[in-house]
């Protein structure tokens, strides 16, 4: 019946509308009262992709176009010494994060689209570096995905850490969904785990499998652009862009397959189906899926008491609908969704600062700090 109805409607709705599955709840709400405002702490950044705090006063912001900014007291300075950034399609300079041991080592990690390697095109690379006199020094390539491709899509990327000395980062499927996400002998469509020095942990899930990429921690991902360490459980939480419909939140577990493109709640942009199943034995189900897609980017938990009623909630940027989404989660189930900063612009990133405030990267604007109204 549903198919018939779809066909019937399809005759009328010729304009690209396909048979999207039913909207997934809970329905997004507007707050009853808005008891917060924002101030701009860094202005005029086209695509503020990554944000990391050096201390309570200074932070670094990556612009996808291949520029790294240092911001202190509202003064924005370009940092020198970046390696070659391959700006192509959705790729460019991506995430940045200070190491958990930054206070003693000064180590900073970043991911970027990179043309290094023999094949034409590029892939996502992870570097470690240090900042001295506004210049990156001791910059080391820790990981470079291959095989390069000139495709513009799905580079990821986000970086996060657990409290056991591991770094996690994401690479998207690089526009080759039929091959990359399900093949652990190739890069792309994966979450990776490394030691802080870039070496591969001996207990990574695929280290003993011949030909596999030993840095892979989980696979079957499409394009993860949100990653955060859960403040209480220490688990790595990610979200990823689905196709049309089917953006997902996942908790990352060693060696697991998250199903792309075998299962998905989404369909092709053109409206045609990708697969007719949304679940299958051996493939992980998301903790939550967005339908319609919000195009999620950036992810943070509020752990501070700065905002009334927000402690423990998850915040995710929406590129598509141009707001910051607040998700209330109980026992790993999303029970409430709310629009924060409605119509603010394409939200690329959100981070909790060392001062407990939320900092939001908005395209064309810069970095916004959310401040409770007193």
């Amino acid at each position: 019946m549903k198919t018939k109805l779809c066909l019937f409607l399809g005759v009328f709705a010729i304009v690209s509308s396909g048979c999207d599955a039913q909207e997934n709840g809970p329905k997004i709400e507007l707050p009853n009262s808005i008891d917060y405002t924002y101030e701009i702490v860094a202005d005029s950044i086209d695509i503020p992709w990554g944000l990391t705090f050096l201390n309570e006063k200074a932070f670094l912001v990556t612009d996808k176009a291949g520029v790294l900014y240092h911001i202190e007291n509202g003064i924005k300075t370009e940092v020198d010494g970046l390696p070659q950034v391959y700006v192509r399609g959705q790729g460019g300079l991506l995430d940045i994060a200070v190491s958990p041991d930054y206070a003693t080592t000064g180590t900073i990690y970043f991911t970027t689209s990179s043309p290094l390697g023999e094949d034409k095109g590029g892939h996502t690379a992870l570097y470690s570096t240090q900042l001295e006199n506004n210049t990156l020094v001791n910059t080391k390539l820790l990981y470079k995905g291959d095989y390069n491709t000139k495709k513009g899509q799905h580079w990821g990327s986000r970086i996060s850490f657990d409290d056991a000395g591991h770094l996690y980062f994401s690479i998207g499927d690089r526009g080759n969904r039929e091959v990359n996400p399900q093949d652990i002998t190739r890069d792309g469509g994966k979450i990776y785990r490394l030691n802080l020095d870039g070496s591969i942990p001996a207990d990574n899930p695929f280290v003993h499998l011949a030909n596999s990429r030993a840095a892979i921690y989980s696979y079957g991902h499409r394009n993860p652009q949100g990653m955060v360490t859960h403040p209480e459980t220490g688990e790595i939480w990610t979200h990823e862009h689905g196709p049309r419909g089917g953006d997902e939140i996942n908790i990352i577990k060693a060696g697991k397959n998250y199903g792309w493109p075998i299962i998905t709640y989404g369909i092709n942009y053109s409206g045609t189906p990708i697969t007719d199943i949304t679940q299958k034995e051996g493939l992980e189900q998301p903790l939550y899926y967005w339908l319609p897609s919000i195009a999620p980017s950036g992810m943070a938990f509020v752990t501070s008491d700065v905002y009334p009623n927000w402690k423990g909630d998850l915040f995710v940027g929406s590129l598509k609908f141009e707001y910051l989404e607040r998700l209330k989660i109980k026992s790993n189930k999303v029970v409430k969704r709310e629009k924060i900063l409605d119509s603010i612009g394409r939200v690329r990133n959100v981070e909790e600062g060392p001062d407990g405030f939320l900092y939001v990267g908005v395209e064309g604007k810069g970095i916004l700090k959310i401040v409770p109204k007193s």
Partner: protein
Amino acid sequence: MKVIFSFLFLSFSSIAIHLYQQKPLNQSIADGEEIYADFCLQCHMDNGQGVPGSFPPLAKSDYLKNIDQSIHAIKFGLKGPITVNGKSYNSNMISQGLDDEEIADVMNYILRSWGNKTDVIITEDKVAAIQK
């Protein structure tokens, strides 16, 4: 005499190289369709219809009548308010990092798709000549 020969030789070779570089229009359009699906479709959509209020249409778009301006936008990005078919848009289009040949291909595709019609053939040289 020798000089004239050299000159002629150089002219012929440059023409030959030029012709060799210039791929057939149907190949350019086919390559352009692939580029479109990769780099443009997500915002301008599968039938070039755009997204009302956010991303302007390319289908029967009056903006495309100014070809140099259109190439410039793809090559260097486009920022600030524009008007397309009487409606205003103010989204930031970033440069996609396409090379001149790819820009020529995608322009040849766009200018002949979704009801758009033209006799103009965009070449790699034409794109190379558009400066910031």
